[in-house]
């Protein structure tokens, strides 16, 4: 309940801030959408940083580090420090100058003007909105999941289905409501103020949390040394031999268990007698969940009972144990070649398979603050439904194979942060600056701010791989990476800190949501209603009302979509960024290349979106999370298939590289063979110095 109180106080503070900032509202549409170009260096820095750092800043960074190791810092953070500031410097200042000179509020207004094309807006509009919406969904859904996770057990009897915590749908609704109120009343000024406040909150709380976690893990050195001992691969970007050996051993154990489980439960070809089971249990010491199955497996193997299975049955056993969908038509070598871990993963896993844990552990699921057996306190407290799913995954599924970070993939990831150049909400933020000089502070401080937030989070994520609690690993295998930070704080610190950290995570989420909501509302108003309705049809007051109505509409629509919990929405994030990045050549050329023509711009957009759709389809709609375009090996070009581990020596590239190269090439070629823009247009955008 303490956590809930702190979160509630934080949300009320935000509402007060939003309403207070609305008292400074001048009543004009320019003030509502661009804060009358009044944002100085500090507010610009904080609002831009808060906008670019999403839920990913705290939750995703620690989660990715838990999964991939320290390499994520170079891949996502230090690269952004270089590229984001490059975009602010090269694009932001120029966009601000033109925006102030010609009165732009949105990207589409600029492109329509620069490219002498009304219809370019019609093409760009659905693309920009389509790429922003999944990005919005990530924030809305993440906020619901985080609040639910930290409030588990807050209610005595309500919301049992949600582990007695605030249901994610309710938390998301409240977060959407709070953001809506301060964006509705405060417009861009309220958003900039709220972003500044929230950025300070999540930066300070992130550092405080890091310090407390480090203390609780026995200090900085002890926490890192534990990783060096247990998971050294997480401290570098290649696989340590000891991690590989450990994995091979545990995978072999898993295959034995899969064979026994399948033979005894599915085929019913092996049935241990009561006497044999007793003997098996007596010889097995650890008492972890599902230990009896492990004991029986060892007994069956020792006594040669598993030898009777054919290779086809063994393959069936592996898929069954790992909850994979078996192929309708078995491959030719199904009864000749045993599946490997890699080939197992090429079969899709059954959606929601882990919910079987609810049935298996039904007697253990209950209120997480109540003890299971008052007469035997050692039995511990009841499990949450999340824990039941977690234990099911950890005890049934094949262990994760360690994997290295491919240097080519690392290099081509540098294209992803170029997305900030085409984010419509960032474009709008740039236009709020008081002067061109206001950009200097954001350009310089942005890489340092990223470092302040990311280094502690990456360290915490890496420490989580090897941290122990009461002599046991803090996180079981297959633990959801994005839940690592909140769970760790909850397990080892006080409810007060958990409440504060949650406020910090929500701050990071909301500081992006607000700009995106405002931006989408502005695009609808300016680029559709006002543009096609005619400027003289609406007075300024009416434009503000229309923008506010659109903001309500987009918040409601996003919330509605979030209720369906679309699959893979989190993996969609990188795809959204890649889509924006693939349009980066367009903004760069529009600002610096006189020869860019209307046809060249169309070619750029159409190529970018066609490549995006084609590659997105090949990635099984983001289901293949490690999807890359590969050069070399058995064929010159290939695309990562489900579960495929790419052989050493093959060049792996992020799909964004191909998209950018394709859109750039199309833009240049078509521009060069078509008629240059009118001199009048060139004079407006490239005045003589």
């Amino acid at each position, binding site marked *: 309940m303490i956590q809930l109180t702190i979160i509630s106080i934080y949300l009320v503070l935000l509402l007060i801030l939003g309403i207070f900032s609305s008292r400074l509202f001048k009543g004009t549409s320019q003030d509502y959408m661009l804060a009358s170009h009044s944002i100085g260096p500090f507010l610009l820095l904080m609002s831009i940083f808060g906008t670019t750092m999403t839920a990913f800043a705290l939750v995703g960074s620690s989660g990715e580090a838990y999964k991939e190791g320290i390499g994520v810092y170079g891949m996502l953070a230090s690269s952004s420090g270089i590229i984001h500031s490059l975009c602010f*410097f090269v694009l932001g200042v120029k966009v601000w100058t033109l925006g102030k000179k010609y009165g732009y509020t949105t990207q589409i207004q600029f492109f329509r003007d620069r490219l*002498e094309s009304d219809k370019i807006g019609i093409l760009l509009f659905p693309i920009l909105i389509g790429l922003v919406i999944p990005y919005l969904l990530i924030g809305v859904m993440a906020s619901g999941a985080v609040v639910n996770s930290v409030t588990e057990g807050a209610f005595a009897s309500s919301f049992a289905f949600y582990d007695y915590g605030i249901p994610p749908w309710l938390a998301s609704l409240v977060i959407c409501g709070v953001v809506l109120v301060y964006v509705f009343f405060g417009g861009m000024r309220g958003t900039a103020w709220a972003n500044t406040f929230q950025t300070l909150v999540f930066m300070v709380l992130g550092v405080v949390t890091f310090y407390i976690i480090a203390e609780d893990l026995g200090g900085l050195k002890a926490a890192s040394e534990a990783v060096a001992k247990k998971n050294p691969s997480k401290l570098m970007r290649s696989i340590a031999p000891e991690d590989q050996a450990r994995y091979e051993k545990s995978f072999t154990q898993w295959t034995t268990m899969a064979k026994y489980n399948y033979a005894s439960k599915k085929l019913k070809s092996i049935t241990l007698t009561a006497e044999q089971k007793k003997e098996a249990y007596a010889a097995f010491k650890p008492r972890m969940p599902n230990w009896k199955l492990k004991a029986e497996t060892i007994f069956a193997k020792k006594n040669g009972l598993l030898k009777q299975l054919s290779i086809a049955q063994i393959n069936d056993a592996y898929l069954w144990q790992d909850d994979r969908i078996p192929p309708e038509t078995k491959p030719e070598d199904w009864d000749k070649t045993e599946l490997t871990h890699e080939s197992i993963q090429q079969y899709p896993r059954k959606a929601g398979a882990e919910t079987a844990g609810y049935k298996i552990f039904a007697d253990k699921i209950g209120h997480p603050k109540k003890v299971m057996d008052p007469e035997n306190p050692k039995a511990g407290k009841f499990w949450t439904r999340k824990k039941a799913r977690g234990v099911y995954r950890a005890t049934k599924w094949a262990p994760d194979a360690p994997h290295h970070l491919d240097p080519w993939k690392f290099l081509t990831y540098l294209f992803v942060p170029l997305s900030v150049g085409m984010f419509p909400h960032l474009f709008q933020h740039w236009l709020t600056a008081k002067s061109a000089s206001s950009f200097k502070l954001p350009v310089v401080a942005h890489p340092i701010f990223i470092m302040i937030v990311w280094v502690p989070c990456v360290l915490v994520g890496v420490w989580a791989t090897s941290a122990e609690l009461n002599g046991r690993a803090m996180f079981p295998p297959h633990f959801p990476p994005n839940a690592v930070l909140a769970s760790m704080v909850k397990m080892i610190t006080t409810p007060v800190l958990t409440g504060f950290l949650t406020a910090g995570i929500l701050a990071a989420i909301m500081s992006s949501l607000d700009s995106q909501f405002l931006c989408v509302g502005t695009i609808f108003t300016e680029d559709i209603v006002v543009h096609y309705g005619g400027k003289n049809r609406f007075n300024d007051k009416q434009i503000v009302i229309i923008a506010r109505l659109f903001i309500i509409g987009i918040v409601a629509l996003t919330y509605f979509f979030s209720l369906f919990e679309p699959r893979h929405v989190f993996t969609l994030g990188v795809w959204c960024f890649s889509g924006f990045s693939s349009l980066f050549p367009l903004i760069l050329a529009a600002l610096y290349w006189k020869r860019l023509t209307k046809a060249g711009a169309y070619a750029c957009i159409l190529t970018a979106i066609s490549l995006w759709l084609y590659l997105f389809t090949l990635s099984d709609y983001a289901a293949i999370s490690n999807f890359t375009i590969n050069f070399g090996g058995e064929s010159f070009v290939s695309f990562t298939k489900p579960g495929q581990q790419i052989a050493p020596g093959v060049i792996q590239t992020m799909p964004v590289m191909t998209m950018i190269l394709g859109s750039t090439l199309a833009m240049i070629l078509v521009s060069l063979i078509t008629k240059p823009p009118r001199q009048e247009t060139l004079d407006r955008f490239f005045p003589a110095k």
Partner: protein
Amino acid sequence: MKYVIWGLVLLLIILHQDLWFWNDSRLVFGFMPIGLVYHAGISVAAAATWLLATIYVWPVDVAEDAPVTSENNGGEA
């Protein structure tokens, strides 16, 4: 100076690809993985480079007080 600054940005991008620490799990100061220390250094170097850029290659032709005009026709070309 313009070429020096853009040269530094290019150098940062090259240095970002630190193949030399790919297989190194050493801990600096007993707790910081060397690959992480190095990339934190890249972040600091990026800030320093951008500071130089704002001092030496800031676009002087930027119209600080460019008035908001009614020239914008929203693309109704």
